[in-house]
């Protein structure tokens, strides 16, 4: 686990992290927030933190912040096996 101080308000998944709030979250996820410039790491001794039950990052970390970013969007394919139009 990792303790962080959100320096800006940001969204990760369905969770909204509020600027100025202190959180306790999974370590790799916290490292991603710090690396992105959205939070600073707090010492383990920091007591006044809010535990957030969010999933740890798995696989590749999200692509890093850039001033001019182009998304990589996945094309959707709706198959129709056995004449049933899939979603």
């Amino acid at each position, binding site marked *: 686990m990792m303790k962080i101080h959100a320096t800006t308000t*940001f*969204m990760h*998944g369905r969770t909204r992290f509020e600027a100025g709030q202190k959180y306790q979250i999974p370590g790799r996820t916290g490292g991603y927030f710090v690396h*992105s410039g959205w939070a600073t790491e707090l010492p383990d001794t920091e007591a006044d933190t809010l535990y957030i039950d969010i999933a740890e990052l798995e696989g590749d970390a*999200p*692509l890093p912040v850039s001033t*001019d*970013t182009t*998304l990589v969007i996945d094309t959707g394919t*709706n198959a129709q096996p056995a004449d049933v139009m899939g979603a």
Partner: protein
Amino acid sequence: MAKRINPSVLDGALNIIKTGISGLGPANKIIACSAEPVTFTDANVTYALASSVMAGTDFTIANGITGGNTPRKITMAAKSGASITTTGTATHVALVDTVNSALLLVTTCTSQALTAGNTLNFPSWGDEIGAPT
């Protein structure tokens, strides 16, 4: 046994995105979201990080590439220079109809850290309805 569907049938679905039908569509906004939106408000407000306006000329319907006899595909034009309004991790992209408050299409994107004040570009992408197989 072969199965077949007239491409116009599939285009009917795709045209809801491009031109709309009464009370539904067309899509007039593309939005990068921090989570999978399941409602219009999810996409347009709750999980919205950045967006661009879409117009009918931004959509092209043509033959698709998947198997079957007549797959059809709608391709969305690239949109550049969108302002990132909310900081967060983009994981999904949605097309919505703000006139009818409808969520029309959702896809995934490679997870991307976005910081408010920066610029986001949506590349061209597509959605395909395969033919019956």
